C-alpha cells in the first residue's frame, strides 16, 4: 500500500467539506473565523474572491455546502454557513477601496457577454481587472438576471443586488440595456474577440392539459408571472390560487401570491414530500405563511365555466416502489380543487432562437449547444457558454463557478493559448502552532446547536412585497454560530519518521479517528481494521508510510475529525502537526491568484 499522497491539493481540499462542496470553492472556515474576529470586511472580500455575490448568496444560495458540512455528521445540524455569509455582507464597511480595479491601459481585446445574470457578471468581474473591454448585452433595463426579476424582494432586497452588480459594472463594463440580442451573427460581426453566452434558461414550461387555454388570463407561467410582479405589471391576484409544481419557483410564486392578495394558496405536487425539489427551508417558510402543500395529485384538467376558471381537476395518486426502487402510481380517485387562478411552476427550458445554426456552433439532439464541460467552449471557438444557458437551469453559485471557469478559458483563448491547458490548483500549508499548548485558532469544541433564523412578524411581512422576511442573526447568535465551525481547514499533518508509537494521539482523539495498525491488502480492507471501522466511503482515509519501530501504519479516518488539535498537542515528537490549508484556486490571468489570503 502506497502512503496517501497529501501533496496533491485535492486531499486536504476534500477534508474541508464545505469548500469542496461549494461549486466556487468558497473558503468557508476562513471567512467564518474572520467574522468571529469582527473582521467583517475581510470576510466579505474573502467570500467575494470566490463567490462574487456574498450579500445575494448569504440570502439565497442553494447552499450545497451545508449538507456536506462535517458538523452535520457530528451533531446532525450543519453550521449555518449561508447565513453567516450574510453577516459578513451586512456588517461590512465600505469595501470599495479594496475591490479590484480595471487598468487604464486596456489589453486591446473586446469581449461580448450576452445577458447580465450572475454568470456573465462573474466573467466581467474576472476579465475587467485584466484590461479586457467588456460589453454586456441585456434585454432588461437592470442587471442581475433571474436574481433581479424572479427572486422576490422579500427574499432579496434590491439594494443588496444593486451594490454587488455595481461593484462589477463600475469597473467599466459597457452596459447595453434593453438590447435583446436577436442574432449572434450580428454580435460576432461587431468584431468581438470572444463571446460569452450567459442568457439563462428563460422559457417557463407549459402544461398541456384540457382547458389550459380556455381562460388564459387566469393561468400563468411561474417565471413570467414573477417577472411581471417584479416589473409591477401585475399588482394583485385572485383569492384562491393553485400553484402546480413544488420546486423553488413554486415557493416564490406561492409566497408572492400571498402578498398580492391571495388568501387561499395551495401548492400541488404529483409526488410525495420526499421527492420535492424545493429546499427544506423554503418549504418551511411557505408553510409558516400558511401555504397549503398537497401531495400525490396529478393535474388532469382545468375546469372552466362560462369562460372563467373555477377549479382544477386532479388524479389522486398512490405511489408504490418495487424492489428495484422504481416508482409506479395508481389512480385512487379524481378530485376537483376550486380556484380562481393557476400558476405553473414546473420548470424552465433553454431557448436559443437568436443563434443562427450556420456559425459553426453545433447543437445536440435536445437542441442544446455542444459545450465542453471544463472549458465552456462551444464548437465555435470564439463562443463560450455558462450559467443556466450552458446545460440548463442550476443556481446562482453554479453560474458563478461557470463564470470563473469561462473567464479562464476566454483569457487563455485571447492570449493565443490552449484553453485545455488549465492552470492547476495549488495550496499553502502554514503551521498554526503558537506554543506548546497554544494555537493560532480557537480549537475548543462548542456544543451549541444551530441557530435559528429570526423572521419578520407574519402580520408585518404581508404589508409590502419588499419587506425582507429573514432578519439576520443577532450578535449573540453570530457569536454562537461561528464557534460551531470546526475549522476543517486546519489540517492534521503526519510525519511518519518522527512517530515513536506511544499511542498518545490515538488515546486522546475524542472521535476515534486514529488507529495504528498493520498494513492490509487494500484500502478497503484497511477501513475495516480501524478503531471504529470507516464505513463512510465518501470520506477519505489517510494512511502513512510504515512507522519506524513496528512498520505498522498510522491511519486516520477523516470522517468525523473535529480538528481539535489534541492529537498534535499530545504528540511528544510533533509527528502530528496542525497546518492551515489554503487552497489556491486558479483564476483568469493568474495561476494562483487570490485577493485575500486565508488567515486564522
Amino acid at each position: 500500500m502506497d502512503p496517501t499522497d497529501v501533496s496533491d491539493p485535492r486531499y486536504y481540499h476534500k477534508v474541508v467539506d464545505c469548500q469542496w462542496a461549494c461549486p466556487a470553492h468558497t473558503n468557508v472556515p476562513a471567512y467564518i473565523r474572520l467574522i468571529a474576529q469582527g473582521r467583517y470586511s475581510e470576510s466579505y472580500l474573502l467570500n467575494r474572491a470566490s463567490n462574487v455575490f456574498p450579500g445575494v448568496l448569504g440570502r439565497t444560495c442553494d447552499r450545497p455546502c451545508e449538507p456536506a458540512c462535517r458538523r452535520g455528521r457530528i451533531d446532525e445540524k450543519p453550521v449555518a454557513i449561508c447565513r453567516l455569509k450574510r453577516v459578513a455582507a451586512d456588517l461590512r464597511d465600505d469595501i470599495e477601496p479594496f475591490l479590484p480595479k480595471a487598468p487604464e491601459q486596456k489589453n486591446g481585446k473586446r469581449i461580448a457577454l450576452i445577458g447580465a445574470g450572475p454568470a456573465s457578471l462573474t466573467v466581467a468581474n474576472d476579465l475587467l481587472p485584466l484590461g479586457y473591454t467588456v460589453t454586456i448585452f441585456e434585454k432588461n433595463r437592470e442587471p442581475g438576471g433571474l436574481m433581479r426579476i424572479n427572486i422576490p424582494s422579500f427574499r432579496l432586497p434590491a439594494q443588496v443586488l444593486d451594490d454587488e452588480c455595481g461593484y462589477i459594472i463600475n469597473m467599466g463594463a459597457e452596459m447595453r440595456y434593453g438590447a435583446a440580442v436577436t442574432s449572434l451573427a450580428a454580435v460576432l460581426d461587431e468584431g468581438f474577440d470572444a463571446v460569452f453566452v450567459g442568457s439563462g434558461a428563460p422559457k417557463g414550461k407549459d402544461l398541456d392539459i384540457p382547458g389550459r387555454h380556455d381562460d388564459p388570463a387566469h393561468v400563468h407561467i411561474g417565471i413570467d408571472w414573477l417577472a411581471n410582479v417584479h416589473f409591477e405589471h401585475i399588482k394583485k391576484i385572485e383569492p384562491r390560487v393553485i400553484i402546480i409544481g413544488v420546486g423553488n419557483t413554486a415557493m416564490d410564486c406561492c409566497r408572492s401570491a400571498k402578498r398580492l392578495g391571495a388568501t387561499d394558496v395551495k401548492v400541488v405536487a404529483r409526488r410525495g414530500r420526499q421527492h420535492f425539489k424545493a429546499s427544506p427551508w423554503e418549504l418551511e417558510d411557505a408553510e409558516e405563511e400558511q401555504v397549503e402543500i398537497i401531495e400525490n395529485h396529478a393535474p388532469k384538467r382545468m375546469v372552466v365555466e362560462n369562460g372563467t376558471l373555477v377549479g382544477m381537476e386532479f388524479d389522486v395518486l398512490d405511489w408504490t416502489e418495487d424492489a428495484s426502487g422504481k416508482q409506479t402510481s395508481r389512480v385512487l380517485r379524481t378530485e376537483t380543487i376550486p380556484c380562481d387562478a393557476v400558476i405553473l411552476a414546473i420548470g424552465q427550458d433553454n431557448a436559443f432562437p437568436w443563434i443562427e445554426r450556420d456559425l459553426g456552433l453545433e447543437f445536440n439532439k435536445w437542441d442544446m449547444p455542444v459545450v465542453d464541460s471544463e472549458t465552456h467552449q462551444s464548437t465555435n471557438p470564439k463562443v463560450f457558454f455558462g450559467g443556466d444557458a450552458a446545460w440548463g437551469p442550476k443556481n446562482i453559485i453554479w453560474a458563478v463557478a461557470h463564470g470563473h471557469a469561462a473567464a479562464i478559458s476566454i483569457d487563455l483563448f485571447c492570449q493565443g493559448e490552449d484553453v485545455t491547458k488549465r492552470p492547476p490548483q495549488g495550496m499553502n500549508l502554514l503551521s498554526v502552532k503558537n506554543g506548546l499548548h497554544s494555537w493560532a485558532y480557537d480549537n475548543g469544541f462548542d456544543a451549541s446547536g444551530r441557530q435559528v433564523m429570526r423572521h419578520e412578524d407574519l402580520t408585518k411581512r404581508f404589508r409590502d412585497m419588499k419587506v425582507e422576511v429573514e432578519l439576520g442573526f443577532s450578535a449573540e447568535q453570530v457569536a454562537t454560530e461561528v464557534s460551531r465551525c470546526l475549522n476543517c481547514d486546519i489540517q492534521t499533518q503526519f510525519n511518519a519518521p518522527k512517530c515513536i508509537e506511544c499511542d498518545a494521539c490515538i488515546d486522546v482523539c475524542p472521535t476515534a479517528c486514529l488507529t495504528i495498525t498493520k498494513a492490509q491488502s487494500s484500502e478497503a480492507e484497511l477501513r475495516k481494521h480501524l478503531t471504529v471501522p470507516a464505513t463512510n466511503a465518501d470520506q477519505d482515509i489517510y494512511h502513512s508510510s510504515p512507522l519506524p519501530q513496528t512498520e505498522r501504519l498510522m491511519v486516520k479516518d477523516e470522517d468525523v475529525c473535529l480538528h481539535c488539535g489534541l492529537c498534535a498537542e499530545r504528540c511528544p515528537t510533533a509527528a502530528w502537526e496542525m497546518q492551515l490549508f489554503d487552497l489556491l484556486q486558479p483564476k483568469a490571468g493568474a495561476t494562483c491568484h487570490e485577493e485575500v489570503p486565508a488567515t486564522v
Partner: protein
Amino acid sequence: MTSIAKPIATHPRLKTNSLGLTIRDYEGGMSTLCAGCGHDSVTAAIVQAAWELALPPHRAAKMSGIGCSSKTTAYFMKQSHGFNSVHGRMPSVASGAAAANRGLNVIGISGDGDSLSIGLGQLTHAIRRNTNMLYVIENNGVYGLTKGQFSASADIGSKLKKGETNEQPPIDPVLLALSVGATFVGRSFSGDKQQLVPILKAAISHRGLALVDVISPCVTFNNHEGSTKSYQYTRDHDVAAVEADYIPVCDPIEITGLGAQSSNGHADSLRVVQLHDGGTVRLRSTSPDYDPTDRASAHQHISACQRRGEIATGLLFVDSGSRSLHDVLRTSSTPLVDLRHEDLCPGSAALDSLMKRFR
C-alpha cells in the same frame, strides 16, 4: 497538559456495552502528564477493559499513591470512587477499602518508585494477603514525578538522560510477586494494547490480588538511547512468553487470536483456566516447557528470559483456585459497609463476653 478539555463530541457510531455506556463514559479528566507518557496509554487500556467488562462505574474504587503513575486514577472512570494516598501506601488503603466493601472492584495504580522503592513492604504484604484487587505497576525505571532519578526497577547498566549508569540490581516485581505467593501475575507494555487489555480484563475478574507490571516509558526522562525502559528498547526485547485471551462468561467460547496449536506446533501449550466470575482465560505459552499455571515453572521460565536479556510478557501465572483475603478471614458475605450498625458493632456487652474467652 492540553489547551482544552477533550471535546464532548463522540464518534456517532460508537458502540455501547451491556450497561448502555460508550467507552467515552469510562474516561476521566484530561491528563496533565507529559505528552507521550506511557501511563496515558495504560489509562486508555484500563478504560477499554472496564468498558468491555461493563464494570458499573459506581462499583469501582481507584486507589493510588504518589507519582506520575499514581496521578492517573484521575484520568479514568470519573464517576468512580477514588483515594489518592501517601507515597507507597496505596496497598494499605486499598486493603482497607477492599476489606470494608467486598463488592467493590478495587483498581490500584502505582509506580515502580511507589511500589518497589518506598512501598516495597506494602506491596509484598498486599500480595500475601491476597487482597481482592487489580494492582497495576506503571513501570518506567525512574521516579518520573521528581524528575527522573533511578528507581528500584532500573536495570544494571541502564543510563540516565545525562549519562549516569545504574549499578544496583533491579527488583523485578513479577519474580518478587511469584515468590511471595501472588495468585495472578502478568506483564505487558503500554505500547501494546492488544496484549494489555485482555490481561487487564482477566486481572479485574480474578479473585485475589492480580499484579500487572506494565512497562510504561517515561517519555521525558527515560526514553533515550541507553535506557532499558524506552519505547524502542522495550519493542526490541519484548518476548510474549504467554499469550492470553480473556473470555467473559456470557461470550461463546470462540477461538479468537489463539489457535489450539501454537505457532511452533505444540498442541499441548493451550490452557483454558476458569476464573471465579465464570469467565475463562485461554493461555498459550510460546515455549512448550512453560506452564503458566505452575508457579515453579513460571518462575524458572521468567528468570531464564531475564538472563537472556528478554522481557517476558503475557499473563505469566494464574492460580485459579486462589483464596482471597475475604475467603481466608471467612468474613460475612454481606459487605461490611452494608451490615447494620448493631451487627457490625455489637456493643460493649458483646465485647466483654468476647474478651472473657481470652482470659
